[in-house]
């Protein structure tokens, strides 16, 4: 058991001995708090009449009748918007070893390289879950405070709300694993970060939007990682905005996410991790 626990302990120590983890956690919290708090205030204002519906030129967008689902929707921002942060942290955890040539001391201390990579996956899964909690502190914490301020029930008595919170934590943990896989598949740190940002912020949203136009593409589009993640969490602004779009079952979404992470990691193990360290 020590064979895997020791490298896991080393990986935790590596993550928490540089500054990037709390910088990302802080940005994640602030970003999600602004979005969740802002939208809670906006919809809360609509709901209790302090913002006149006429003031909102709702061009067939979010139907106010769906606002019964408002709290879960707000809470899901932790993953549906915040997932880029665990991916980044996971990718940095692997690309940093290449960039700073720390693979040398790492492989000298643990010459079985598969063990090191497994330790990274386990560690980042836990750290990703931690980022999930940070994101939820913003989306469900700040969001619920604001909703409550507008007299909307934050639905914390509802078991389904807590299930959604749990699935959000799981989604964020899986995203961090995908980050590890991406980082080992694309060891260049700059290239990895560009891919993460371009794909999550631009390419995938466009693909998901485009895929929703026909049934065939929608059936393929539901396997995109972001779509799978939203399916796992169970509620998201995105699925709401594209009604009729094919959606995976929650458990299927989780398996698809896990699949992306494991396939990327296994691919990277052979293309970069096992190579000569010069």
């Amino acid at each position, binding site marked *: 058991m*020590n064979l895997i626990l*020791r*490298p896991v*302990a*080393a990986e935790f*120590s*590596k993550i928490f*001995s*540089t*500054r*990037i983890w709390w910088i990302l956690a802080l940005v994640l919290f602030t970003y999600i708090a602004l979005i969740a708090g802002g939208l809670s205030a906006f919809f809360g204002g609509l709901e209790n009449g302090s913002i006149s519906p006429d003031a909102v030129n709702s061009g067939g967008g979010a139907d106010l009748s769906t606002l019964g689902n408002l709290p879960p929707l707000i809470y899901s921002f932790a993953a549906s918007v915040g997932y880029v942060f665990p991916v980044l942290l996971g990718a940095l955890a692997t690309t*940093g070893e290449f960039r*700073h*040539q*720390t*693979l*040398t*001391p*790492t*492989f*000298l*201390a*643990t*010459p*079985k390289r598969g063990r090191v990579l497994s330790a990274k996956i386990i560690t980042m899964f836990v750290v990703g879950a931690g980022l999930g909690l940070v994101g939820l502190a913003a989306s469900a914490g700040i969001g619920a405070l604001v909703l409550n301020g507008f007299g909307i029930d934050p639905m914390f008595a509802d078991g389904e709300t807590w299930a959604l919170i749990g699935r959000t934590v799981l989604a964020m943990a899986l995203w961090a694993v995908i980050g590890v896989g991406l980082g080992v598949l694309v060891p260049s740190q700059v290239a990895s970060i560009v891919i993460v940002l371009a794909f999550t912020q631009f390419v995938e949203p466009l693909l998901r939007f485009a895929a929703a136009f026909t049934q065939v593409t929608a059936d393929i589009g539901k396997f995109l990682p972001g779509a799978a993640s939203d399916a796992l969490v169970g509620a998201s602004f995105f699925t709401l905005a594209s009604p009729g779009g094919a959606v995976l079952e929650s458990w299927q979404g989780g398996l698809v996410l896990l699949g992306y992470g494991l396939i990327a990691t296994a691919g990277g193990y052979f293309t970069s991790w096992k190579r*000569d*360290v*010069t």
Partner: protein
Amino acid sequence: MPTGAVIEFKNITKRFGHTTAVNDLSFTVEPGRVTGFLGPNGAGKTTTLRMLLGLVAPTSGSATFGGVPYRDLPRPLDTVGAALEAASFHPGRTAAKHLGAYTLAAGLPRTRVAEVLRTVGLAEHADQRVGGYSLGMRQRLGLAYSLLGDPGVLVLDEPINGLDPEGIKWIRGFLSRMAAEGRTVLVSSHLLSEVQQSVDDVIIIAKGELVHSGPLSSLDTDIAPQVIVDSPNRDALVAALTNAGLAFTSGRTGLIVAVPDPGHVGHIAFTAGVELSVLHRQKAGLEDSFLALVEGGDSL
């Protein structure tokens, strides 16, 4: 006290594409002695050491510690301590945290971190980020890493590079102490003069191939002995040497004649009636022997 293991290279070869970096290298490194692994830059020293440590896969052949390849050592850091040339640090991590991560990975007591930092003289800088370290401090930190498991074998790639004179003096004493305790100490360098005061044995490679191995004294051979000769009447001496058919060049302190025997030159001068002011044999130094062995190497 940890005991050293014999390092054994057996017909080890590494090719990168069409380039052969290391070609069929075989030698052993004994415990209780400091062994210098020498060769010009680009001779294949670092590649050879990285193959020894399981970081680079050999094309063929093997490298072992007491018969066991690095990757199969049950407790690698307790057996072998290595410091390689590359600066392998995250600049944002402190020295103590850097070492701490690897004590966890190797299952070593956390107290070792402070101990090795004290040994290499970095105790005061333990909580400083490595990004602010000088080259000499990074070298010391690399050495501290190699000592974490108190290993019986030390493998150090260019450990003297970047050290200040005080550091050089310190590391020479340190290497000798390690060997005196019965450890195996393998130290690479591209300059013989850098290590000749501390090594007992030398392994010399050039262009990826072994050119010499043996005790340091085995280098102390006159491979190109010369005679220095001068006269108050140098023109007469030049004429005498030319008549005798000897090749010579003009040096700062006299004429340098390419013959081993000063008596021969003295006899020629005597016969020609030329008075001599200088006549002695010049021995090639260790460095000259080294350079002759690795002839054709660059960056020297």
